[in-house]
């Protein structure tokens, strides 16, 4: 389904389904009958009230369509990966969700409140961690967190409790009195996460939190996020280009390019669908391994065969594209085995999430 079809189906299906969300305690009746507008295929019960609901979001900067009809939904406890190449509109969408910017058209709801109409209520419900955030000079970890606790209006014991909770959760207690501009990247990401958590919002929006972290710090971050979503029931929207990471952190994903959603659903769905597309497609990449010195000759031989589009050699590997159907594949394989070449391996190129991503996105640069 092309993205425009996707949009149309959503446009018709999601009409007048948001109803009138009033507050977080209201029964989820408004959502009843809510058709699947995106990623709530993630085994979630549709009766649950969505925490993030982005609807036909558009944001243009002059002629540039940075966000161009993006819709998706996230339910409590979900970790949604927001994946896209550079300049695809992730940060723009997230800034709108955090009430730092306004859409050109469409709307987004956090905890049922519109980012356009109720920014104050949205701010209470959202913790936003931008990709780059400034650090105050002459300030230590506790002071930083304390300042934001106060800025969110926490008073007295509540504030102290919030500080304790965050320091324990992020394991920053032992660094409580370290000046923040001496923190390592990993530690300052933890501090950023701590700041986002200080007013205990149900929705977290994290813009590339894993960027620049070493593998260990990334694993730790992943664990923190897992705890936040599974144990504390937070809804987390997390953007990244690091795709291999996302498979483990997220239960679902929205893939966006040039401001448009290309695919959305659970990670598994996206992957399966991609594999299925590949199986259906008539242009498959195969890799063959032959004994020493035969690669060049094999490549030449392959090029003479029907349905072979191209063949490249890399040491003893030969990669070639093939556009025939399964019968043609079988024929080719039989002929290859029967030929003089000493074939050791013959495989279809392995499909990773990375490949799915590369295949889905087209490298459009606006």
């Amino acid at each position, binding site marked *: 389904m092309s993205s425009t079809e996707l949009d149309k189906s959503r*446009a018709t299906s999601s009409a007048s389904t948001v*109803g009138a969300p009033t507050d977080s305690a209201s029964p989820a009746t408004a959502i009843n009958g809510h058709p699947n507008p995106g990623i709530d295929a993630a085994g979630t019960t549709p009766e649950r009230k969505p925490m993030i609901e982005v609807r036909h979001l558009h944001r*243009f900067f002059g002629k540039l369509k940075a966000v161009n009809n993006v819709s998706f939904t996230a339910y409590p406890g979900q970790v949604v990966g927001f994946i896209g190449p550079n300049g695809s509109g992730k940060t723009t969408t997230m800034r709108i969700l955090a009430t730092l910017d306004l*859409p050109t*058209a469409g709307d987004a709801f956090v905890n049922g409140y519109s980012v356009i109409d109720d920014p*104050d209520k949205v701010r209470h419900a959202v913790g936003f961690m931008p990709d780059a*955030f400034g650090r105050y*000079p002459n300030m230590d970890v506790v002071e930083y967190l304390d300042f934001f606790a106060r800025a969110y209006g926490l008073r*007295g014991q509540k504030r102290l409790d919030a500080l304790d909770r965050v320091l324990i959760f992020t394991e920053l207690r032992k660094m409580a009195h370290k000046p923040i501009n001496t923190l390592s990247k990993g530690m300052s990401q933890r501090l950023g996460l701590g700041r986002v958590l200080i*007013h205990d919002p149900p929705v977290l929006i994290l813009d590339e939190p894993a960027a620049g972290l070493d593998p260990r710090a990334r694993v730790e971050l992943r664990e923190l996020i897992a705890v936040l979503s599974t144990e504390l029931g937070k809804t987390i929207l997390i953007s990244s280009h690091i795709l291999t990471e996302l498979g483990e952190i997220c239960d679902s994903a929205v893939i966006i390019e040039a401001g448009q959603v290309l695919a959305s659903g659970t990670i598994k769905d996206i992957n399966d669908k991609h594999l299925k597309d590949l199986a259906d497609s008539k242009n498959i990449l195969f890799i063959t391994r032959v004994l020493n010195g035969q690669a060049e000759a094999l490549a030449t031989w392959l090029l003479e065969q029907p349905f072979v589009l191209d063949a490249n050699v890399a040491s003893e590997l030969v990669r070639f594209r093939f556009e025939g159907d399964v019968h043609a594949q079988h024929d080719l394989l039989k002929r290859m085995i029967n030929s003089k070449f000493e074939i050791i391996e013959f495989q279809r190129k392995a499909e990773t999430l990375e490949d799915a991503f590369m295949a889905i996105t087209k490298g459009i640069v606006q």
Partner: protein
Amino acid sequence: MSTAEKTSRIDLALQRMNAYSDWINPIVIKEVRQSLKSKLFVTTFMLSLAACWAISVIGIMFFWNVIEYSPVSLQFFICYYWVLAFALFVVIPFGAFGSLQTERDQNTFEILQITTLQPSQIVTGKLASAMLQAIILYAVIAPFIAFSSLLQGFDLLRVSYEMTISLAICMGASMCCLMLSTLGKQKNFRTLMVLFLLGGLVSLFSSQASFAAYVMAGGADFDTEFYLWNLLFFLGGLSYFFLFHQITVAQLTFEAENRSFGIRVIATAQFYLLWICMYAISIMYASTMLRYSDDYAWSCAVISNFHWAIVGFFAVTEAEPLSRRIRRDLPKSFWKRWLMVSFLPGGSRGFFLVTKHLLLTIPLMLGLQYVTGLAAGETNLPTLSGLLSEHKTESSIAQIGYIIFFLGMGRLITAGMMKAAPSTRPAHGRVVMLITTLMCVLSPYLILWLVGYYENRMTLDYHPLMVINPVESLRYINDNDDAMSRLIFSFAVLAGGIVLLANLPGTLRGLRQGLWPERPDPYRALDYSTVREQLQRAEETGVTAVMG
């Protein structure tokens, strides 16, 4: 002391502080914590202390022989005061400037903006931190002043006066700096502004330092008039303090929010404050100093017209549409909306506000003349027609006509530009308005020069073509009462009137927007037709952030 011990002590102190600090502005707490660790603050503190010590020691050595019977207290105080003044008028305001600017530079501002902290709290917090620093410096200086009070010739009244106004001026300067720090984001512009600001602060310092020397040397009589002037200055200063506060807050507020309301309310309050003060003064002093025929009422009109010209310059160029958030928050009662409407953002409503008050100036001015005459006990009181035919009145009305003409033109041009090229910003409108005005000022000279009018003349007398040049025309009408001045008056009234009429449809539309707002349906089901409408509107208007 081990670090562990130190930490636990800090913890303990923090805990104690925590109990009391809940209701203090978070920004103040943050700034205090930061400044306790900041080199700049500690250096200023230590340097002031050292300077005062040096002054004391050198002074005592210098005056050693005469210290017991000569009034040297004055010299000591002035020297201490200079140290204090430098910190108060240069270091603290400049620190405030830097503090808000770095906040905005360091990407910290955005995450602050989405907390529940209001922009006004941020500004007030920054101001309060500046105030706190000033108070700490006062505490540093206090013992030295106490020392100087032991010497001969100490004048408690004058010292208290100086110390009080210095604190007030420091606050004013800090507010001004905070406002400047929010204007302009371009790097070159900022560099220029820093230089300009430093120059301004240093000259403030030097003028205050010499004023203090003048006052301390017995230069001003502390009589009723002196206090009255001080009161007037204080009130005027306070009104600008609030105005600058509102402007700063507006600069830190999201565009879709109501940013003009506070500014417009304060500017209007300033207008009424001016006239109230003027009426009060006229009643108090009419019998001794003023007569109705004086230029007094007319000068008030000049000040108030100038005020509205400046307010109008900014107000009439604002973008017209009321954002969804503003419309949603408009009061339910029609009468409340009627009271609010001219304070809502938008060029048409700005034009309405300014014109309304410019026209109100005429009766206020005439009334002031009448009241002055009445209070002075003059027997032959003027009639309304007498007042109206007064030459100075004519001149004032011409002034108002010109202001309405240029503001109205500015609004029409800006509104047209915004319609034609939707990416037009208010600032563009202001530049165009300036250029238009400048062209009206300059073109008569150019035309007259081109036709050779100036060739065989020694003096530059007024040519009828000059009517479009407000500067020359107002000067002429002010100095002369003849057929030509009559012509200028007629032109100004006519031009103002025509522009007023030309603005009428736009103004009415603007008022309707505020009086009968299309209230957004906050939780409307967002179907795709709405989105398509929004997109279409964005395409037509080019406004890419949704406002309506």
